[in-house]
């Protein structure tokens, strides 16, 4: 039987792709998220949402079947938690200082286009994960 990804699923996959693409572009001060000094902390949100997107694609378009629950979590809950985690990280990096503040001196590298693509991509995955978790919620 041919299986199809829901619109929410496509949103998660697209958000993950946008975040991964952003991580490869300039994120901080002309450096990608995979550069020395940024990897693995700044890269982590992109890795997390990419894993979600890949899991969704594999479970939909291949014959690979995952267990319905992992440590008591449904996949919808896992998507929502990981999406929230990645979004929280990007929100924190948007509001915090990636450089150093000491002795009245502040050195803060500029956030580039890749950063904002990661920000948007992880937010889309978070919202998609929330909707997916609600759809899978057990009404009883």
């Amino acid at each position: 039987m041919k299986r199809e990804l829901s619109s929410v699923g496509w949103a998660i996959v697209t958000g993950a792709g946008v975040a991964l693409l952003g991580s490869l572009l300039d994120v901080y001060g002309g450096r990608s998220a995979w550069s020395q000094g940024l990897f693995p902390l700044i890269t982590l949100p992109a890795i997390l949402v990419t894993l979600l997107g890949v899991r969704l694609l594999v479970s939909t378009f291949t014959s690979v079947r995952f267990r319905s629950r992992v440590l008591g979590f449904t996949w919808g809950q896992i998507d929502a938690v990981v999406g929230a985690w990645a979004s929280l990280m990007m929100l924190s990096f948007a509001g915090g200082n990636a450089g150093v503040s000491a002795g009245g001196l502040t050195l803060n590298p500029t956030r580039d286009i890749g950063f904002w693509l990661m920000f948007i991509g992880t937010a889309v995955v978070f919202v998609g994960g929330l909707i997916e978790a609600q759809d899978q919620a057990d009404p009883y």
Partner: protein
Amino acid sequence: MQRRPTAGEVVTILSALAVLVGSFLPFLQVQRLHFTVWSNSFGILPLMPALVFATVGIGFVVTMRTFTKARFPDRVLGLGWEQAQLAVAVIVAVTTICYLTRDPGPLVRAAGFTNGAGVYVILVAAFGFGLGALMMMRRPHRQTWDPWS
């Protein structure tokens, strides 16, 4: 009658306390400059404080449920309390490992950049927090913690 705390509850409460203590210890050091979880540098704030608040918040709920008659909702944000605790433990542990393994680059390293004791305390406490969640998930075989028996 007041019930005695289970082993999982004790591990959870102690781990949450350890995370709180670790947040005030040096997280990163550059020569004689110390940066704690509450320092707005190196991308620590507000991410790590948010994770400390989540850990201490769940630890507080477990403490209240154990030692008082306070009642809380069965679920938080669509997750059971033990699930939320396990999720927070994994998030804190993986995020802390990322801070721990981050290579700041030759220039910053040459300036004397090292990880502080706080990052190790929080990492160990996060594992304890997760262990506490797993122990509490196995509630049918409730084991009471009694150091005197």
